[in-house]
């Protein structure tokens, strides 16, 4: 893999083909656990872990597995990775485990993971697959955390509350009361808020893309119309 394609992978995972904002995959956890930053962070980490593990394993076994049973094997690997994550989280971060609830086991059905396994890891060698899993996980996680932060901020006026759930007792002090009002904008942390804030994030991304594109277009030459034509009937002698 050349460095440019790693750049391509990075760009894809983080922005151009961001799993959450563009591919619209893994929406359930995206919306369900982003009422606070810490929840988002927890699930982001878990998803990242599963994504890396599954991509790695799938890439390793890609030559062994036939098409017929490809999907079930992948699903099994993913489910195993999820269960391991679940057990570890239960053991070492029990409260967060409880808060994330069924969305932890539901990582199994997060379409990103199966999607990456099938679309990328299956066809690529280990390093690229690993990197792809990692960057996709980061891309998904970044949106998750961003969403969590926005919703927490709007809905409570604070950021990084309850970090001790993830980082141990010392993290309790990380809570940052950004602004203090008697009555925060509660809808942000309720279910509708999840949809609304996500919708606005997508719109924001679209807006940025449009202006980037316009800037790029201003620089680049216009494509040559019809330059990709082929002749249907023979060549002209």
């Amino acid at each position, binding site marked *: 893999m050349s460095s440019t394609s790693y750049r391509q992978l990075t760009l894809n995972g983080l922005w151009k083909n961001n799993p959450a904002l563009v591919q619209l995959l893994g929406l359930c956890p995206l919306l369900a656990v982003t009422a606070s930053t810490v929840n988002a962070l927890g699930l982001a980490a878990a998803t990242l872990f599963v994504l890396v593990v599954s991509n790695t394993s799938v890439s390793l076994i890609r030559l062994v597995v036939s098409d017929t*049973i490809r999907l079930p094997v992948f699903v099994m690997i993913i489910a195993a990775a999820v269960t391991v994550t679940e057990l570890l989280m239960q053991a070492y971060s029990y409260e967060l485990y409880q808060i994330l609830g069924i969305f932890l086991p539901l990582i199994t059905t997060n379409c990103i993971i199966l999607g990456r396994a099938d679309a990328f890891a299956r066809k690529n060698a280990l390093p690229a697959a690993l990197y792809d899993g990692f960057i996709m996980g980061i891309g998904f996680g970044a949106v998750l955390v961003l969403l969590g932060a926005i919703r927490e901020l709007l809905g409570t006026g604070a950021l990084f509350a309850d970090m001790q759930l993830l980082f141990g007792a010392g993290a309790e002090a990380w809570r940052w009361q950004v602004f203090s009002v008697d009555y925060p904008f509660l809808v942000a942390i309720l279910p509708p808020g999840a949809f609304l804030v996500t919708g606005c994030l997508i719109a924001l991304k679209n807006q940025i893309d449009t202006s980037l594109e316009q800037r790029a277009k201003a620089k680049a030459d216009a494509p040559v119309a019809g330059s*990709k034509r082929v002749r*249907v009937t023979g060549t002209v002698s």
Partner: protein
Amino acid sequence: MMATLIDQPLLAALTALLGLGALFGALLGFAAIRFRVEGNPISEQINALLPQTQCGQCGYPGCRPYSEAIAEGDAINKCPPGGEETIQALADLLDVEPQPLDAEHGVEKEPVVALIREDECIGCTKCIQACPVDAILGAAKVMHTVIADECTGCDLCIEPCPVDCIDLVPRKSGIGFWHWPLPADRAPRFDVIATDAATRDAA
């Protein structure tokens, strides 16, 4: 048996998953043979929507190859003769977002037909070989002519003609082809036609 399994968690897990896995695998193996999917009917449906100009502007030799490419996941915005309408129809069929026409493949133009200026034609038959829909009649060394109803306006016959005697003329013109245009959004609802000039000219 049960008791041993409960005592041996690893063994129990192994047994349970092995059992499920074997069952599942067997089922799928069975299904794979029993219910193989044949062909890709979607490309037929796609081909039915393409304009069949057979011009190759999409980068494929003809509409059918392009339809197969779309079925395999190629972009749907590469066919200039179909233009916006075809893209919309494809988007509907495939349930994807329509995109604007990819200008690298050309721009949407008014439909045309080829017209051979018959007195200049030298009867070289080159255009006949070029025409993808056999819309040109003629034999060696006699004047050729285009069956206007069959011509798709692909313009493939233009280049081969050694004497440049083929023109592309608009296919739809005149009052018989006219229909009302969609009203423009947010535009004034009237036109002012200065008829004085026209009146004077006609008179």
